[in-house]
């Protein structure tokens, strides 16, 4: 999301397309290494950009390993902990997890890890689909400021931020370009 006062705030480009691509390739290798191959591994992307990243990871893993990896998409809004305190409910997108999660090693994929609340919601929702063997977490950016005891297993880039900064992840499929940038002082 482009900041409305981008001209006033300092925007730093943190990672370009090539950088994102390198980070995802590394994550794909780490996932395979950690799980000793692709067997029983499934990816679940958190809508919207986490799902895009999960699709890219799926392609990378299948290319490296030459084996099929299951992919699911998830809208976590129904599991948010602020669902009854907001004025207008967000539009619910489709959750598509068409495989059996039981005994799978599930890698949750999201773009930015921040407070950890989204991932908590994703974990809870995933468990309502069944009992995976493990749930792992892959994120493109970890910007710190956790409010829950959650950490990522695979991190593309650690970016130190203030709470007032805004991290913008752009992905080609959703936004027309690949980039990670920071607007200092643009967040709440």
């Amino acid at each position, binding site marked *: 999301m482009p900041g409305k006062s981008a001209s006033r705030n300092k925007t730093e480009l943190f990672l370009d397309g090539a950088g994102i691509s390198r980070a995802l390739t590394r994550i794909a290798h780490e996932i395979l290494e950690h799980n000793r191959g692709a067997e029983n591994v499934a990816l679940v992307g958190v809508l919207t950009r986490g799902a895009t990243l999960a699709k890219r990871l799926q392609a990378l893993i299948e290319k490296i390993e030459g084996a099929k990896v299951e992919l699911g998409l998830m809208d976590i809004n129904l599991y948010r902990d602020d*669902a009854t305190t907001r*004025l*207008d*409910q*967000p539009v*619910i*997108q*489709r*959750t598509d997890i068409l495989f059996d999660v039981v005994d799978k090693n599930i890698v949750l994929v999201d773009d930015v890890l921040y407070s950890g609340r989204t991932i908590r919601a994703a974990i809870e929702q995933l468990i*309502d689909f069944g009992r995976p063997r493990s749930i792992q977490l892959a994120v493109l950016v970890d910007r710190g400021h956790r409010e829950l005891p959650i950490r990522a297993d695979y991190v593309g880039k650690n970016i130190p931020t203030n709470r007032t900064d805004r991290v913008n992840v752009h992905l080609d499929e959703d936004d027309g370009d690949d980039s990670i940038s920071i607007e200092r002082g643009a967040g709440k």
Partner: protein
Amino acid sequence: MGLASRHLLGLEGVSAEDLTQILDTSISFREILERPIKKVPTLRGVTVLNLFYEASTRTRISFELAEKRLSADSINFSASTSSVKKGESLRDTVQNIEAMKIDMVVVRHKSAGTPYFLTQCLNSNIINAGDGAHEHPTQGLLDMFTIRQKYGSLKGLRVLLVGDIKHSRVARSNIWGFKTLGANVAICGPSTLLPYEAERFGVDVYTNLDEALEGVDVVNILRIQLERQQSGMFPSQREYTHLFGLSSERLKRLNKNYTIMHPGPINRGVEITSEIADSESSVVLEQVTNGQAVRMAVLYLLSGKKGEPEETES
């Protein structure tokens, strides 16, 4: 984003955007019903009162399940008679219950306008589960959802409602909702059971079922109440079935694909034969399942919308 109103009182006047938002959201909830755990924590901490002043089994159960599947707490208040006769006014009854901290009220009542009345007494979001012969908006929505599921869109479809249109809240919600989403709506029934100036609803009006069926995509058969015959609206059940009952002989002439709907409960052999009700064209049970998804979507979308009662001076 979000619906224009914090209540769902009827489908008359609800915009195509809002109807579409509810129906789109329902798709996600419909999917939840296929999960092993058919429950999400979304409305944890929200308390819903199901206020049923009229006997109802399926609508009440459907709402109750929808609430439970959203992790809301629900309580049921059923009264077969109006509280007026028990000496306590409806306002007192609901204000007392709301004082126990209620967030949403699902109401069914024999008097048209009661859901509106509640918006004047309460802070809660009000959902109309049927008020007299006025509206039954969640039934209208689930019917639209079911048609969209099968045809993708209502635009340009010919939908026929058959039966006691005059006393049917389902018919009214159907007419408003279907028309807003672009369907061509026709109604057919005995002239004694058609509403006054029915064509002003913007529908085609028939009293001959065979003519009405021509070119139809969806037929929604309404339940015929026995008491209508007793009050002289038609001479006999036998004659009703003869003139307005849906049978395979009638449908054979159609020469095209069609969908049969019924809001239930069905009088088998009266307004529809068992053969048709159970045929492949019938989506009656799918309607019931979809009803839960639509009600979950409505509860979800309205739950975020808090507000003060719209008390008018007097």
